């Protein structure tokens, strides 16, 4: 289910930490990165991997915003919805971006499964309001140029 690289990362964390449970968050991150979701099957897989009950894994997985039950696109664009960015109309920016990427209203992911656009809470890049992230990179401010760069990618 996971790549050997991902498994290694989980294994390394597990070896370093006092118990398997400490590697849970890392395992969830790795799974989300590689599978673009942590649904029931992934939860059972991780539970088996770390020797935890699936309920515990589910409880932790569903606590964090970045771990999603439904699949995201190959790339995820996070548009900051924090107060500063909100005042720079980041909700409209998100709308525009969805338009650029052909994502329908009420949807988050483009039909080709390439991009997911999500309005998230403050991402800690307020000086580039309206801030945004393309996967793990900060790409704010999300002006027209940035939007085009993202959509052309």
């Amino acid at each position, binding site marked *: 289910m996971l790549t050997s690289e991902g498994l290694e990362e989980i294994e390394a964390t597990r070896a370093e930490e006092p118990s398997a449970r400490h590697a849970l*968050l890392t395992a969830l991150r790795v799974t989300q990165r590689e599978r673009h979701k942590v649904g029931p099957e992934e939860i059972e897989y991780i539970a088996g991997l770390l020797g935890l009950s699936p309920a515990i894994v589910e409880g932790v997985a569903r606590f964090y915003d970045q771990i999603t039950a439904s699949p995201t696109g190959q790339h995820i664009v996070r548009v900051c919805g924090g107060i*500063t960015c909100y005042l720079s109309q980041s909700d409209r920016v998100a709308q525009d971006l969805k338009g650029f990427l052909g994502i329908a209203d009420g949807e988050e992911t483009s039909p080709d499964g390439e991009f997911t656009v999500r309005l998230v809470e403050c991402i800690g*890049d307020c000086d580039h309001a309206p801030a945004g992230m393309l996967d793990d990179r900060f790409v704010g401010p999300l002006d027209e140029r940035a939007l085009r760069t993202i959509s052309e990618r």
Partner: protein
Amino acid sequence: MADFLTRHTKDPAQKKLDTARGRGAYEGFRRALAMSRQEVVAEIDASGLRGRGGAGFPTGRKWSFIHAKEGQSVYLLCNADESEPGTFKDHHLMTFDPHLVLEGVAVGAYAIGAHRAYIYLRGEYASIAETLAAALREATAAGIIGQSCLGSGYDLSVGLQLGAGAYICGEETGLIQSLEGKRAYPRVRPPFPAVHGFLREPTVVNNVETLACAARIMAEGAEAFARLGTRQSAGTKLISVSGAVERPGVYEVEMGYPLMQFLSHEAGGISGGRRLKAIIPGGTSVPVLTAEEAAPLTIDYESMLSAGTMLGSGGMIVFGDGTSMPHALLRIAEFYAHESCGECTPCREGTGWMAWVLRRLLAGEGRPGDLGLLLRVGDNIEGRTICGLGDASVQPVRSFIRKFRQEFEALAPLPVAFPAWQLHGHGPRTGRFGPPVEEAAQSQPVEGPPDYVL
């Protein structure tokens, strides 16, 4: 403008160990290693360094609470889960001077006798984690961190952990829970982390900036730090200013720097030639200030406290003329409702309820007495929750409604049925902010406060 911490952050080469060491990186750690633990703690105590995460608790004293029993391990957790809206100072510091942060972690770990330290970064800071990891690899390879740091015989290993998007992980016990692979439900205190923290062992949780300060203090001496700033607020502070200013960004200022001067000079004035309407001085968790209130203030703990707010994390959000305060408040309230972990009742239900009422007011479906309801819900949350998130969610609601009453009343259907005391308060509020700073400094602490304002 001060440069105690940010002297070299302009230079991208500072990320490289060689460059950084050429500029004196890890000299503070070397000096600390030559001293006993108690001496390091005493030095930090003498510098007057206070926690930069928001609560402003004296760092030296926090470290002195650690009394490990036989067979216990001690842990230092560096709180880099910078999730307070409007705050991005640690982002800046870790990106541009990762070795300073690592040095701070090493100094802190040595001072409390920890051989294992963690840096917990919020999930969005994955790219910063890479920077830190690269720096950590360099430092480990150079023998600075690892077995027998700098040849001193002191062992230290540092772990990096990324979160996955939860504001509550910035609360110290929430951070501990998250690190242990649990839902980040804050723990009830007592017992405090200094007694039962990570893995139920004595633990200190410090903010990134605090630890960076500690590293610089060890390099330059307590005197150099204490000379800066005011009597109660020593040193400098990283201010991350955003919103309606010309030059948003991170600026280091000496404590006691006039707020208005900061806005006009460093931040370049209010954007678009507008007038200042309001300013949140330390992240959304502290009460908002009107332009009139903000005018005479200086950037330090006691001045902010005198105006009934807090310096907090130093995440300043500036509102220009024409901003709709109810809309801004709704966004803030929704943030807390979304980020409430849902563990304890008042915060779980109260934050959602406040957001719901605000939403209905802004949708034109307000009911008579809704503003009073908001304030009353806030009163019922404040001081009744496990961690500070509940209190933090109340501060903006209460201060926005009291200070920008007309804007809210315009939304609320008449009659606005709430008593005058709810609007104006009973006088200076105690509770969250505790006694005035002078008294607080003299009185014995009854609890180790959280590192991070929530």
